[in-house]
């Protein structure tokens, strides 16, 4: 008979107490496994979403974190806007002058290229207008370039695909400027499909509905990004919605205060046979998603510095902001949760200690008998420690299975919410520490009763 079997028999002898202690340890380990799984999902979700396919977000001066949260995750309240003319500074080549001629309106120094155009050859800048809602989901006014140019996924190389329909167009014969694409989760929750007409509400989820209706022409395939939870509408249509154009008196006042001279053009929409577009001086954007051309690393750093020296706007690096947020907010919370669950395991270890220690008085005679049969003191100590380790490991294995079982059951929901799969065997690196950690904890917990057993007076307990 080996010592483990003797320890196992001792556990069986105190069946209920042993099982309750195992259950307590199992609960602690289940919590650790679930917290690690949640931490993994949160971290992976943030890391995935930091691969957004662009290097810089440009927006109004303020908190770069808020700009990032607002633009990448559609969280927090929308930040202030920047003029559309500022967005045109990022057009490569003669894009700025061409856009002025095409859209029309008033603009300062309309005949020069964009200030940042030299960085943009081979890159792109996508405008984003935020502030409206479709049910609880954010509405994003943008251009068809959003889905044509941006990528997602861990490596930032996955193209957006449509499970139904197509990308919206800047102008279509059947829907004019009022086409929309909807994220997978927003579509399923709002129960809309291609061909449906939707009307965003202004300012907040319960805000007043705009009169204009957009026709859904595409449903995005699930991406596991916040874009699954948004409605994307054509920016030209967005501008024609009530309260989305800058009031003319405000424009006039700003132009007067600037003391600058402005060129003016009617735009080409009418001559192209298109409905009128909102003039440039009445347009604003919430953010500009910028990927400079060439080897964008150096260009992006230069561009970010140059923009931030300017008083008109700020540039934020989403990767850096997300990494900062992870290290400043998310990781400390994850750590605190982990510490709490480890405390639960510690309490379970103390339960093992109390359970075995309390049984010592009724076991002294058995220990004395084993000693009388020739068991050395260190053998008795090892038997008690083995019992403690058996209880903890049994609890640990049950807890691990329970934790991963719960994760697997919750997997479809987690995948629906985050796009991240959590399988039964999705194992966090830290979990490899669990069993050695539990064994150490059990040895620590078993030491006090084990030494009590070690000191058992054989003669007295045999005679008792």
């Amino acid at each position: 008979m080996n010592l483990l079997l003797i320890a196992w028999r001792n556990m069986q002898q105190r069946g209920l107490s042993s099982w309750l202690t195992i259950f307590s340890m199992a609960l602690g380990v289940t919590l650790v496994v679930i917290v690690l799984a949640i931490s993994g999902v949160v971290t992976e979700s943030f890391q995935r979403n930091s691969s957004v396919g662009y290097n810089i977000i440009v927006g109004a001066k303020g908190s770069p974190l808020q700009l990032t949260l607002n633009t990448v995750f559609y969280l927090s309240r929308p930040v202030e806007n920047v003029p559309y003319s500022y967005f045109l500074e990022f057009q490569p080549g003669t894009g700025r002058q061409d856009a002025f001629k095409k859209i029309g309106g008033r603009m300062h120094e309309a005949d020069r290229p964009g200030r940042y155009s030299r960085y943009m050859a081979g890159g792109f800048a996508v405008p984003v207008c935020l502030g409206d809602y479709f049910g609880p989901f954010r509405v994003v006014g943008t251009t068809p370039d959003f889905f044509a140019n941006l990528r997602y996924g861990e490596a930032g190389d996955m193209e957006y695909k449509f499970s139904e329909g197509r990308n919206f167009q800047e102008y279509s014969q059947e829907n004019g400027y009022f086409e929309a694409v909807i994220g997978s989760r927003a579509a399923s929750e709002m129960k809309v499909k291609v061909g449906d007409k939707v009307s965003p509400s202004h300012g907040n989820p319960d805000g007043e509905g705009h009169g204009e209706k957009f026709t859904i022409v595409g449903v995005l395939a699930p991406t596991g990004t916040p874009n699954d939870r948004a409605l994307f509408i054509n920016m030209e249509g967005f501008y024609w919605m009530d309260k989305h154009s800058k009031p003319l008196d405000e424009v006039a006042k700003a132009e007067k205060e600037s003391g600058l001279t402005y060129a003016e053009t009617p735009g080409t929409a009418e001559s192209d046979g298109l409905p009128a577009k909102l003039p440039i001086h009445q347009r604003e954007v919430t953010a500009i998603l910028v990927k400079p051309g060439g080897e964008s690393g150096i260009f992006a750093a230069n561009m970010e510095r140059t923009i931030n020296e300017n008083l008109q706007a700020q540039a934020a690096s989403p990767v850096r902001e997300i990494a900062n947020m992870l290290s400043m907010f998310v990781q400390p919370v994850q750590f605190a949760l982990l510490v709490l669950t480890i405390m639960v395991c510690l309490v379970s270890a103390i339960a093992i200690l109390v359970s075995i220690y309390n049984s010592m008085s009724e076991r002294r005679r058995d220990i004395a008998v084993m000693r009388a049969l020739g068991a050395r003191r260190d053998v008795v100590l090892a038997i008690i420690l083995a019992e403690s380790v058996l209880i903890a490991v049994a609890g640990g294995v049950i807890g691990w299975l329970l934790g991963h079982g719960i994760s697997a059951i919750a997997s479809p929901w987690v995948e629906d919410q985050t796009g991240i799969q959590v399988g039964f065997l999705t194992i966090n690196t830290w979990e490899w520490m669990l069993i050695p950690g539990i064994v150490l904890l059990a040895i620590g917990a078993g030491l006090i009763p084990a030494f009590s057993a070690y000191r058992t007076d054989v003669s007295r307990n045999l005679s008792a």
Partner: protein
Amino acid sequence: MILEVTNIQKSFPLPGGGTVQILDVPQLKVDSGEQTVLLGQSGGGKTTLLHIIAGITTPDKGSILLDGIELTKLSEQGRDRVRAAKLGYVFQTFNLLPGFTALENVRLGMTFGNGKHDITRATRLLERVGLGDRLHYKPSQLSVGQQQRISVARALANRPRLLLADEPTANVDAANQQKIIDLIRETCQEEQIALIMVTHDLKLAQQFPRIERLEDLNRVLQAVAK
């Protein structure tokens, strides 16, 4: 000679201070295979003497030579090893471990002894004591007489050189008493094991070839008598 006890003295502390002497045995010798009974009344120090011979308790003075090994010069670990290898012990209250089956109780002695898990010998011993069909029964499922027979089998598991039996029939009904004594004596004889049995029952003692009265052995009792 398997056992030679010389000038053993043992005192115990009193709760209020001071000590009380229990044992003062000038000599006790037992030959290999010899069967001896220690006859004496309760409180005469019989169990203490057995504990000292088994190395469970250490004497204040004196020498115990067990199969040529001086027990009083050994560490506690050393005494544990000698006990496991050379001694068998049958307790008055059986002292079977309740969570273990009959077979496991017998194998337990082997685990702490030579470390060899000789299931065949354990099974054969249980068959020898008439419990071949009760190998996997827990003590609580067996009668008192059957429990004591397991404890005899356990004591013999390691092929000891000396078997100590402390009032082995005190808790057994009259019908089973003689069976237990016969069992112990016969198996000791078969395996050439020396036997020291402690009892206060004169009728039982008279069956043994050698009777040592504790009053004659222990000077403390002689002094009390005077």
